[in-house]
C-alpha cells in the first residue's frame, strides 16, 4: 500500500469515527469516562512508551518532531477522559480566597469582575464557575461586570452552566434579584475610579439595557462601601493590579483574585502586603478552588491534562539531552 492510500484510509476511518461519535451524542449517549484501572493503565503505557523512546535514543535512533507532536496531543487528550483522583492539597493563597467567601452571610453582596477574553478561558472560566456556584449555593447576591469587552460574555457562559446545574436550578434564582450582569464598560482603571463614588455613573444600565435604578439588586448599591466582597478574575491589563491599586487601596474594597498562571507571580507582592485576601492561580489553583467550593468542573478535568503535558515536555527535554550526548559520543568515536 502506498503512503497516500494509507493516509486516505486513516482520514476516512477517523472521519467515520467522528461521525459515529457525533450521532452518538445527538441520540443522547452519555460521555465516556475511563474507570480508574484503565486510567492507570493508560498513564503507565504513556510512561513506558517514553521509556522505550529513551532506550531507542540511547541506541542512537532519534525520534522526529512529529512524534513529539503526537505525544503532546495524547498527553492533552487522554487525561480528559480520566478519573484519576489527584490528591488536592490546597495552597494557602487559594484558601485565603475561599475563607473570605465563607465568612459572608446569606444575602451578602459579591462583586465579580470578568476581565479576560476567550484565549484565557481554559484557565479562568473554571474559577468563574466555581465562584458563581458557591455564591448561588450559599445565597450570596452576585453583581457581575467586565473591564474587558468579552468579559461579560464569558460571565454569561458561566452563568448558563451554573444555573443549569440541578443543585442551583431548584433554587429558582431571579435575574435582577439574585444576580445581575452589568456588562462591559470601556475606560480601564478609570471605570474602577468612578465606581468608587458611584456605580451608576459607569453602569447606567445592565447588559440587557435595563436602567440601573430599575434593578432591585443594585438600587441600594451606591459604591464599593455597599459591597461585602469582590472577586476579580483577570488575565492582564486592566485587571487585578488596577483593582488593588484603586478599589482596595483607595476605597477599602475586600478583594480576592483569580489569575492565569503566567500572571500570578506578579500578584504575590499584593498578597504579602495584605491587599489581596488570596489568589487563585492558574489551572492548579482553579482545581483547588473547585475542590473547596465542591463544584467539580473543568479545572479538575483539565489539571491532569496540563500536568501530563508538562511532564511530556520535561521528558522530551531529557530525551533530547540524552540524544545529544549519545550523538557526541558516537561522533567522538568516529573521529
Amino acid at each position, binding site marked *: 500500500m502506498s503512503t497516500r492510500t494509507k493516509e486516505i484510509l486513516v482520514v476516512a476511518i477517523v472521519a467515520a469515527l*467522528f461521525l459515529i*461519535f*457525533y450521532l*452518538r*451524542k445527538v441520540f443522547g*449517549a452519555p*460521555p*465516556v*469516562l475511563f474507570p480508574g484501572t484503565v486510567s492507570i493503565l493508560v498513564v503507565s503505557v504513556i510512561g513506558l512508551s517514553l521509556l522505550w523512546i529513551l532506550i531507542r535514543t540511547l541506541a542512537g535512533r532519534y525520534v522526529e518532531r*512529529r512524534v513529539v*507532536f503526537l505525544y*503532546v*496531543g495524547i498527553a*492533552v*487528550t487522554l487525561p*480528559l*477522559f480520566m478519573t484519576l483522583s489527584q490528591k488536592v492539597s490546597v495552597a494557602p493563597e487559594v484558601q485565603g480566597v475561599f475563607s473570605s467567601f465563607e465568612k459572608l452571610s446569606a444575602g451578602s453582596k459579591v462583586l465579580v469582575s470578568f476581565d479576560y477574553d*476567550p*484565549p484565557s*478561558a*481554559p*484557565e479562568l472560566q473554571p474559577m468563574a464557575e466555581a465562584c458563581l456556584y458557591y455564591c448561588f449555593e450559599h445565597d450570596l447576591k452576585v453583581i457581575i461586570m467586565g473591564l474587558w469587552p468579552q468579559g461579560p460574555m464569558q460571565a454569561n457562559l458561566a452563568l448558563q452552566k451554573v444555573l443549569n446545574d440541578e443543585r442551583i436550578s431548584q433554587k429558582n434564582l431571579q435575574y435582577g434579584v439574585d444576580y445581575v450582569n452589568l456588562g462591559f464598560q470601556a475606560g480601564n482603571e478609570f471605570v474602577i475610579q468612578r465606581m468608587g463614588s458611584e456605580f451608576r455613573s459607569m453602569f447606567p444600565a445592565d447588559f440587557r439595557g435595563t436602567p440601573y435604578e430599575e434593578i432591585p439588586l443594585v438600587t441600594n448599591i451606591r459604591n464599593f462601601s455597599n459591597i461585602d466582597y469582590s472577586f476579580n478574575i483577570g488575565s492582564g491589563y486592566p485587571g487585578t493590579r488596577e483593582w488593588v491599586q484603586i478599589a482596595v487601596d483607595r476605597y477599602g474594597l475586600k478583594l480576592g483574585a483569580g489569575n*492565569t*498562571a*503566567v500572571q500570578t507571580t506578579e500578584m504575590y507582592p499584593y498578597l504579602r502586603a495584605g491587599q489581596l485576601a488570596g489568589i487563585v492561580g*492558574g*489551572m492548579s489553583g482553579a482545581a483547588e478552588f473547585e475542590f473547596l467550593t465542591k463544584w467539580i468542573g*473543568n479545572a479538575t*478535568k*483539565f489539571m491532569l*491534562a*496540563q500536568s501530563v*503535558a*508538562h511532564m511530556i*515536555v520535561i521528558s522530551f527535554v531529557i530525551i533530547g539531552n540524552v540524544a545529544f550526548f549519545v550523538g557526541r559520543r558516537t561522533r567522538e568515536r568516529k573521529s
Partner: protein
Amino acid sequence: MDHFALWLAAFFTLGIYSFLYKDNPWYKLCEAIFVGISAGYWVVTLFWDNFHGKFWVHKFEDWWLWIGAALGVLMLMRLFPKIGWISRWALAFIVGATSGLWMMNYFSSNIMRQVQDAVLPLFGTGFEASFGAILANIVVAVGTIAGLVYFFFSKEHKGVFGGTARVGILFLMVTFGASFGYTVMGRMSLLIGRIDFLFSDWLGLIR
C-alpha cells in the same frame, strides 16, 4: 451552537492541526479561507474605524485631517509609475513620525525608568534586608552591568571587559531559559481549550 457551526469549527480546527503531520489540501483550504475572510474583515474594520470614524465623521470641523487624507492620496500615486516617486513623501512622513515618536517614548520607558529602578540600596535601609534579598540585589546589579557590557559595540570583548561580557551572555541565557520555561504551561492550556472543544462540545465524548 447549532450543528452547522459546530461542524464548521471542528472542520477548521482539525484542518489546521493536520498541518502538523504535513502540508495537505485540507490545510490549504483552511488557509485560503482564513486569508480571504480575515483580509476582508480587516479592510472593513479599517474602513469603518479609521476612515469613517476618524476622518469622515470629523471632516468639516477638523480641517487638518485633510492633510492626512492628502498624504494617503500621495501614497496611491504609486499606481501611476510616472509619478510614483511622490508616494515617498507620505513614506517620509511616516518614517519621521515613527522615529520621532518612539525615540522619546523608548527613552523614558526603557532608559530612564530602568535606570531609576536599578538604583537601589543593596542591603536595604539600615541593613534590614535578609540574606536572600541582599544576594538577589547583588545578582541583579551585577547582571545588569554585565548584560550592558555584552551590548558594547565599539570595544573588543577581550580581557576583563571580555570576561564581563561573557558573564553578561550567561545572564541573558538564564533570562531566556527562564522566560521560555515560564510560558510552557500557558501554551498548554490553549491546546487544552481546543481539545476540550473537539471532544466535549463537538463529539460529546467527555463531560
